[in-house]
Each structure stands twice: as structure tokens, then as C-alpha cells.
């Protein structure tokens, strides 16, 4: 019997209309744990680098994590992976909610979608019965609207549905996949789903998931539910607070341009609270988690929608408006099925181009004068790929180059052709430089979190913080924190250790299906008392799945997955020169320092000076098939050594941990 996983995946070829239920190899679970890891392995084996994102040969993979739908609280994530039309690289987006558990109870850990349907279709998975159904009547319908219509026509109110809106159907690069309370928003996964002419996947599952150590796991579950509920640092700590100076005073407004320090006042907060109270119906959350990080809001004429996290602020900050604007436009954007992070930046970028005369009334006939109305105008054009919208729908990077006439200069907040968090700061922050430059998840919130963002001012406070800090994998990290006084003053050695830990925890979560808000995004920042960390996750893996791992073995699996994802991108051409944060992310830059830091980090990771994992690194992780492929393709000769570094030269893993 397979524990905590179903042991089956669903293979759906939309070109042929072929559906297969395929048993998976339990050894692969031991090597990759599921989720992002198993998806990366599938992409490596089946999508050669020459396959275009909008090709029937590209795969769209929905995977649940190993612990998803077991009693482990907050293990409810679904990971969506494919190759992005915007970056031509690996795309990774995670969503919570209920769909992943439903899929597992239907008897599948993963769905692999290949091909391209001749007409718009949707997939209906009802346990063993799986159908490809006509979706022509759903063309152009909103994302949540579609989910409702499908549940109605299937007469299955308990089905869980993921959908794309018109943005996905029209292959807008920022298109998201929506699931009512959650979204896989980043990376253009919705565009690939639209390219495959797959409007939705509805799932109903009534099968059981077995666990290997029932009584012990349940005992732990009861304790952890209480702990998570009571832990003020777990979950989206900002979700139910009315105070949000963090984003409004520190993040940039407009096209990632203007920091408005002091915007947030008590008066504004009162006003914002009043607006929120008016629209808020309820706090909701995800499957088997006592937190309630989502706001269910209702707007007359716009129906009900769920707001989360920074998505509450991105639109009005980009449009220089206030919260009421977001509460009006976000429901529209969610129905269109479009990313709430990249999209506002694209809209603000177009407005900037208009204001400086690069885009004219000819490009934007009847362009309104009000910033808010302009947003609606542009959003409509982008979602339908009409006129200038057809170009803007490709994201800031591509649009700037297609428009030309100097528009390239206004593309100032992308890395690897992808819109980044709108931050414009002063002094370079070394760990954030590395995360922004090298993170394969392309999005800092999916890379950072385990190490605190800021130092504590006094040695006493730092000692107090470290005293109850169980999350770090080794003592070295605690020492770094104890000695850390000035935010930007941090050794290269420390930066490497911090960034490695930060990103590896996300690779753990995204393989087992844990919510980052209970784990990797909470290891150190906002309190440093995460319910999950590298020391207790192995226990939950053992109790649920029977796979016995210690901390180091779990880190090794995460590192295997991390390097495999790196390999996917390297095989598609990613190199050192692409690993640059937006040029003006920090005002003060030091090229020489940054390049030395990059060398040190590559060396720490066992990568060459070009950012390619060495043969030794790959083989050590059991990725011999990757190193063989790299040598065959001439990407590696096999004799490369890690990047030059006086800190890490010749040091093994254990020595690195000790520093």
C-alpha cells in the first residue's frame, strides 16, 4: 500500500483525447517527494529545450505534495509547472485552497497535460471516471463564473474547479489559473492552459488517503492545529490587520517608480478600515488549516471574490489610487483570470509611455484622463488582445521591445523578462541581490523568508530572538544573526548561507505541499517561530508516508529538486548574464562586489562560474542523467570546477555549514 500518496497520476493528451491512469514509481517519490520535485523530473524527461511554451509538446503539470490531504495541517498546496511563454523558462506557481486535496481523494497525485485540444474543452475528473468535455459554451466566461456553471451542469456542488478566464483563453502572458479562493497567478500558467484550449479542470474525489503511523500522526495533528491557531506569526500575519504601512510606505507606486514614505497615516487607516468593513463578508482559508488568510468580499454588481495578501494593494498602488479602487478592480481582474502582481505594473508602464509620448492617441484611441479609468481601459484591451493590448499582453519586457521608440528604458523592473516585486531601495542588500538574481521561482516571496529581513538593534534582543529560534538547520545561522547589526553589512559567506537556507525551505514546502505561510515564508521573518521547520518536517513525512528521513536527507532531496529546476533552465539557455536584478532595484550598486558575491554563491552551490551545476554536484545528488545530458550537449565538459571563491574553495557541505 502507498501511504500519503495515491501512487497514481493522470496523463491527459488533449490532441488525441487520450486519458490514462498511470501508476507511479515509489522510488521517484523517495527521490523527489512529489509536488514541484516530481513535476521537474517529468519536465526534464519529456520536454526537450527546443519545445516552445506554446507548443503541444509543452506540458502543463498540476501536482500535489506528498503530505497534501493527510492530517498534516496546511498541507493543501497545488503546484503548477510548465514553461513560461514570457520567459521561455521554467514557470512555477503555487495555490492553496481545496483543489489539491480533492484531486488526491479522486486518486491522483498529479495531472500531466500534453497536446492541444482542437476546440475549447474542460476536464471532468470524478474518481476513476475522467472525461474531456466540450467547453464552447464557456468561451469568454469569467474564471469564477465558469467554475459555478460547471458545477451546475455537472450537478456536483462538491466539485472543486480550477479555471482560466478570458485572459488565459487569449494567451495573455500574465494569465492566471483561478480556484475561487486561491490563484496560481505567477508565471503565465494560465496562458499555457489557454494555449492547450483547456478551460477548466473539475474534480470530485471520494476515495481515501492512507497514512502509515495513524495514531501518532493524529496525536501530532491535534497538537499542531492548536499551535498553528495560537501562533501569531503563522499564516498571513497581515491578512486581518488594518495596518499596512509595510507595503504602502516601502513598496513603489506606479510602474514600480515612487516610494511614498509617510503615505500611511492613522487617518488613512481609519478610512481603509471603514471601506474594508463595508465589503468584507467573512475571513476564509484553505483546507485543514485553522488560519483565515483570505477576505471574502462582496461588491454590488461584481459578485463575491476573495482577496489575499499584497493582492489587496497592487492595483491601487500602481494606479496611485486608494483601497476602494482595488476592491473594485480586483474582482474584475480575478474574473478575467490575470495575475494581480505583474498586471498592474504592465498597466502603469503603458500609462508612463503615454505620458512621455511614446504611446500616442493613435495607439490608445479615446484614452481617458483619470488614472483609474485608464486601468480599466488598458485591462480590457490586454485581456482581449485588442490593438495595443495585443502587445502589452506579452508583459513589460516584450512590450517595451515591440513598441520600441525608447520604450525599453521604461522596462526597469524585470528580471529574466519577468516583472518583479516593485521595490526601489537605496543600499544594496546582498542576500536580496542573490535571491532576485538567481532564484528560479522568479519571485522574491517564493524564495525568501527563513532568515529575518532585518537585524534586531541590541545584542540582548538578538539573543532573546535566537533563544527560542528552532528553525535554523545549524548553529552557524544563529551565530550570523547574533553578529548581524547593520542590514546591508553582511559578509558574502553569510549571504550565501542565508540565501541557500531561504530558498531550500521553499523547495521542501513545494515538494510536500505545505503552505509557505506556516513554514518557509515564516522561518525567521515576522517573528521567527514557524510551526514547520527542517527539524520537524521529517517527522511528519515519516508519520504520514512511512518514508524515513533525517534533516540532512530531506535537505538533500530539496537540493536535488532545486538543481533539477536549475538544470531545466540551463538546458533552455539560462546563464550568468541573465542573473541580474532590475538595474534600479537599488540606487547604490557596486558591480565588482556583486560579481564577487555571485561567484561565491555559485561556488557555495557547487555551480560553475556560469551558474551551471558541475558534474560533481549533479552526480552527488543522483542527477547523473543530467550531467550526461549536459556533456552530450556541450553545456559541460565534465571537468569544470565550481566558480572561483576564496571562501568556499574546496569546502565540503559540512564545512560550509560550520563556515
Amino acid at each position: 500500500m502507498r501511504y500519503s500518496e495515491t501512487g497514481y497520476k493522470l496523463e491527459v493528451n488533449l490532441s488525441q483525447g487520450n486519458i490514462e491512469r498511470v501508476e507511479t514509481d515509489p522510488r521517484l517519490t523517495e527521490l523527489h517527494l512529489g509536488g514541484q520535485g516530481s513535476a521537474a523530473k517529468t519536465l526534464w524527461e519529456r520536454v526537450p529545450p527546443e519545445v516552445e511554451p506554446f507548443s503541444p509538446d509543452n506540458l502543463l503539470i498540476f501536482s500535489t505534495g506528498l503530505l497534501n490531504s493527510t492530517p498534516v495541517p496546511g498541507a493543501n498546496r497545488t503546484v503548477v509547472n510548465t514553461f513560461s511563454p514570457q520567459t521561455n523558462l521554467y514557470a512555477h506557481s503555487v495555490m492553496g485552497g481545496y483543489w489539491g486535496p480533492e484531486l488526491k481523494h479522486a486518486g491522483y497525485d498529479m495531472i500531466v497535460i500534453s497536446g492541444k485540444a482542437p476546440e475549447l474543452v474542460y476536464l471532468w475528473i470524478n474518481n476513476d471516471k475522467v472525461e474531456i468535455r466540450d467547453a464552447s459554451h464557456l468561451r469568454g466566461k469569467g474564471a469564477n463564473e465558469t467554475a459555478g456553471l460547471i458545477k451546475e451542469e455537472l450537478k456536483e456542488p462538491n466539485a472543486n474547479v480550477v479555471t482560466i478566464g478570458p485572459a488565459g483563453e487569449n494567451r495573455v502572458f500574465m494569465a492566471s489559473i483561478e480556484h475561487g479562493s486561491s490563484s496560481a497567478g505567477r508565471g503565465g500558467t494560465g496562458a499555457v492552459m489557454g494555449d492547450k484550449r483547456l478551460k477548466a479542470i473539475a474534480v470530485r474525489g471520494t476515495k481515501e488517503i492512507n497514512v502509515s503511523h495513524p495514531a501518532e500522526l493524529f496525536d501530532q495533528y491535534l497538537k499542531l492545529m492548536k499551535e498553528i491557531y495560537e501562533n501569531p506569526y503563522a499564516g498571513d500575519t497581515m491578512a486581518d490587520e488594518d495596518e499596512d504601512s509595510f507595503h504602502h510606505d516601502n513598496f513603489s507606486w506606479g510602474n514600480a517608480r515612487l516610494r511614498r514614505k509617510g503615505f500611511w497615516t492613522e487617518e488613512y487607516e481609519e478610512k481603509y478600515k471603514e471601506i474594508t468593513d463595508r465589503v468584507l463578508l467573512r475571513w476564509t482559508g484553505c483546507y485543514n488549516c485553522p488560519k483565515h488568510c483570505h477576505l471574502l468580499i462582496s461588491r454590488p454588481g461584481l459578485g463575491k471574490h476573495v482577496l489575499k495578501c499584497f493582492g489587496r494593494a497592487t492595483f491601487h498602488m500602481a494606479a496611485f489610487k486608494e483601497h476602494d479602487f482595488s476592491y473594485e478592480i480586483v474582482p474584475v481582474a480575478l474574473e478575467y483570470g490575470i495575475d494581480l502582481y505583474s498586471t498592474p505594473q504592465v498597466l502603469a508602464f503603458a500609462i508612463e509611455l503615454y505620458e512621455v509620448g511614446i504611446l500616442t492617441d493613435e495607439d490608445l484611441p479615446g484614452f481617458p484622463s483619470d488614472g483609474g479609468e485608464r486601468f480599466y481601459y488598458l485591462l480590457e484591451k490586454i485581456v482581449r488582445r485588442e490593438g495595443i493590448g495585443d502587445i502589452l499582453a506579452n508583459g513589460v519586457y516584450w512590450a517595451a521591445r515591440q513598441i520600441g521608440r525608447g520604450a525599453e528604458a521604461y522596462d526597469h523592473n524585470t528580471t529574466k523578462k519577468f516583472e518583479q516585486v516593485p521595490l526601489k531601495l537605496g543600499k544594496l542588500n546582498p542576500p536580496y541581490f542573490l535571491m532576485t538574481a538567481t532564484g528560479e521561482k522568479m519571485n522574491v516571496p517564493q524564495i525568501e523568508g527563513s532568515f529575518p529581513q532585518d537585524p534586531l538593534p541590541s545584542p540582548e534582543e538578538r539573543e532573546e530572538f535566537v533563544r527560542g529560534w528552532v528553525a535554523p538547520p545549524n548553529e552557524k545561522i544563529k551565530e550570523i544573526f547574533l553578529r548581524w547589526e547593520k542590514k546591508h553589512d553582511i559578509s558574502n559567506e553569510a549571504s550565501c548561507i542565508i540565501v541557500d537556507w531561504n530558498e531550500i525551505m521553499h523547495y521542501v514546502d513545494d515538494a510536500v505541499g505545505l503552505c509557505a505561510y506556516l513554514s518557509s515564508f515564516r522561518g525567521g521573518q515576522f517573528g521567527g517561530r514557524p510551526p514547520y521547520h527542517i527539524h520537524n518536517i521529517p517527522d511528519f513525512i515519516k508519520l504520514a508516508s512511512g518514508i524515513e528521513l533525517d534533516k540532512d536527507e530531506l535537505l538533500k532531496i530539496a537540493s536535488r529538486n532545486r538543481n533539477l529546476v536549475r538544470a531545466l533552465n540551463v538546458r533552455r539557455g539560462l546563464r550568468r548574464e541573465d542573473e541580474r536584478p532590475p538595474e534600479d532595484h537599488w540606487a547604490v550598486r557596486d558591480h565588482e562586489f556583486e560579481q564577487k558575491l555571485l561567484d561565491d554563491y555559485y561556488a557555495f552551490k557547487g555551480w560553475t562560474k556560469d551558474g551551471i551545476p558541475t558534474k560533481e554536484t549533479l552526480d552527488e545528488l543522483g542527477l547523473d542523467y543530467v550531467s550526461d545530458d549536459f556533456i552530450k550537449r556541450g553545456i559541460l565538459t565534465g571537468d569544470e570546477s565550481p566558480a572561483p571563491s576564496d571562501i568556499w574553495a574546496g569546502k565540503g557541505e559540512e564545512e560550509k555549514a560550520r563556515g
Partner: protein
Amino acid sequence: MKGELEKKKVGRIRVDLDKCNGCRACEMACSAFHAVPKYSNINPSRSRIRVVTDLMDDVFVPIRSCDYTKAECDGRRVYTIQGKEYKECSFCGTICPSRDLFKDPDSGLPLKCDLCEDDPAIEEPLCVQVCHLDALTYEVTEEEVEKDDKPDEVELGLKSLLDKHGKDRIADTFARLSKKE
């Protein structure tokens, strides 16, 4: 004897719809508790408590299964409570033919809530234990109820014989058998 009063502990699950976040931990925990062996598998569709959910209508109603009935009611009532519409079935825990709620997905057999009866008894049903938002709370009250003397075995057996064969036939048979001794 009927009519006499006795004190009895009565457990009740109280539901506060406004506090439910829709997480369905109650369903998960219920299905685990009733699995054989206990906690060995999870299947919310086998749970004796279900959160009737319509996210897009802000409907979150945890309902607990109660008695089985062969006949369905007409179920035509629709209630509007503070502007939200609820179907009658949204509040009903009866295991009835009109829906697949509270039936084992494989066998179709009814799944009735037993408030997690266990030996030794547990303090609170599990759905309540895992609901930290207090959408579900448990209260035990001592109530005076009419003493309900249970008929003994002989009485039960005789009653069914009477039902089946009628008073006269039983009386004749009893008389005949009594004479033989």
C-alpha cells in the same frame, strides 16, 4: 416505570455559522476517527459532519448527520437569513435518499454521527476539538428526562410474537404448552 424523572447528561454540538472559515478540518478529523484502524485513512466524503459550502455565496454550514430515513421530504423551503439564501437541506442532517451526503461513497450505507463515542470516552467529539475558530463548540448539560424503562427481553420477544401471530393464537399456544408440563 413511565412518568418518573431522572437526571441525564446530554451532549450538544453548537454551530456558529459566522465563525466558520470553511477549512473542513472537522470533516478530515471525523473521517480519521471513524476509520478502521482508527486514524489510518482520511476521506472527507465519509465524514459524519460536512461543511455545506458555497464560497461564492458566503454559505458555510457545518451539518452533522442524524437519523436515516427511507423517504425524502419535499425540501422546498428556502430561507433568507440576513440577505443570504439557504436551502432547507443546508441545515438538515437527515440521511435521506435525495442526496449522497452522509452515505459511505462505496457501500451507500448511512453514516450516522455518534458524537465520537469511544471507550474510554473522549472529552469532546473530534470535529469540535479541531475547530479552533469555535464554529463548533460542545456543551454537556444535565437534564431531567422522563425515565424510560426499557422493556426486558421476554417482553420484547413476546411483543413481536404478538405482532406476528395475534393475541388469540399466542394465548392458545401458551395454554397448550403450559398444560403439557
